[in-house]
């Protein structure tokens, strides 16, 4: 763990990290862009999750919903990750000792595991249920699971300033 702390200290003390932390406008604008990225990544993914769960867009073919939104979701995740990295660069050490931060990362990992289960375990059989309004139970569970896990990620992130 000390390697991680040493690395975080290095980022924290760097000129760029310090400038970012102390800047009047850059920091809030990056926070704002992080939110914008979240709307595309977690937000559009939530709409896909609700389709998997059989709640919305039931008459649109499932694979179509997945394919149509995928590039925007991936773009959103790239923007969220890039702005998140900048925020980490600025706050590194403070984030490592914040209880909300490891929780956020744990839930990102869990959401990633759920995604792999869907992509490798469920998606190959999609031809059988792709056009159903309500997909099979396993697929609905994967959708609800993703929705809950990513919501926890967003909430843990929002709690960072309250628990620091």
């Amino acid at each position, binding site marked *: 763990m000390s390697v991680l702390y040493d690395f975080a200290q290095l980022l924290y003390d760097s000129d760029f990290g310090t400038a970012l932390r102390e800047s009047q406008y850059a920091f809030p604008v990056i*926070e*704002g862009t992080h*939110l914008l990225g979240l709307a595309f990544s*977690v937000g559009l993914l939530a709409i896909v999750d609700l389709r998997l769960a059989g709640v919305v867009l039931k008459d*649109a073919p499932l694979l179509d919903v997945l394919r149509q939104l995928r590039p925007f979701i991936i773009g959103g995740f790239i923007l969220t990750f890039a702005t998140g990295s900048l925020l980490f660069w600025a706050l590194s050490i403070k984030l490592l000792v914040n209880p909300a931060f490891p929780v956020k990362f744990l839930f990102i990992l869990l959401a990633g595991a759920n995604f792999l289960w869907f992509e490798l375990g469920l998606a190959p059989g999609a031809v059988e249920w792709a056009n159903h309004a309500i997909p099979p139970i396993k697929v609905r569970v994967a959708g609800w699971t993703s929705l809950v896990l990513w919501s926890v990620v*967003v909430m843990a992130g929002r709690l960072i300033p309250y628990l620091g």
Partner: protein
Amino acid sequence: MTILEILRWFQDTGFGVALRKSNHLVGAAFQLVHIIGFVLLLASVTLINLRLLGLAFAREAPARIIGAGNILLGIGLAAAVLSGILIFLSGPVRYYSNEFFQLKMLLLIAAVLFQATLFAWLSRRAAERPFAGKAVAVASLLLWFGVGVSGRIIGFV
């Protein structure tokens, strides 16, 4: 009575004091509902406007995507507004004098009015008037994301 005087009066009522003096984790809980509502709201706006711009679901009728998106938009907006009112009332004078809060409220009023009138009217005719559909889509994205970004900046000024 000016707005500021009304807000000062409210801050000193029992409800106002209770909200202001409540544990900071109560305030954090309002913020959690606010951010989840907001992400859902912005995602619905994005979904609807990607369709109007022809960037997603080009084979689906715009009305179908708009209909589904509007339900989610309504839920997200309701969650964000209700939690937002409680957040505002926990420090009304402080929020009222914050310039990014003022900007956020102006953009919010503009976004709601635009979405309910010109947007609703022209987006329903997007199939016959694709250019008008695209123009209102760009305006809608700018307004709603403007609300979100200016809101995010409130805490920093």
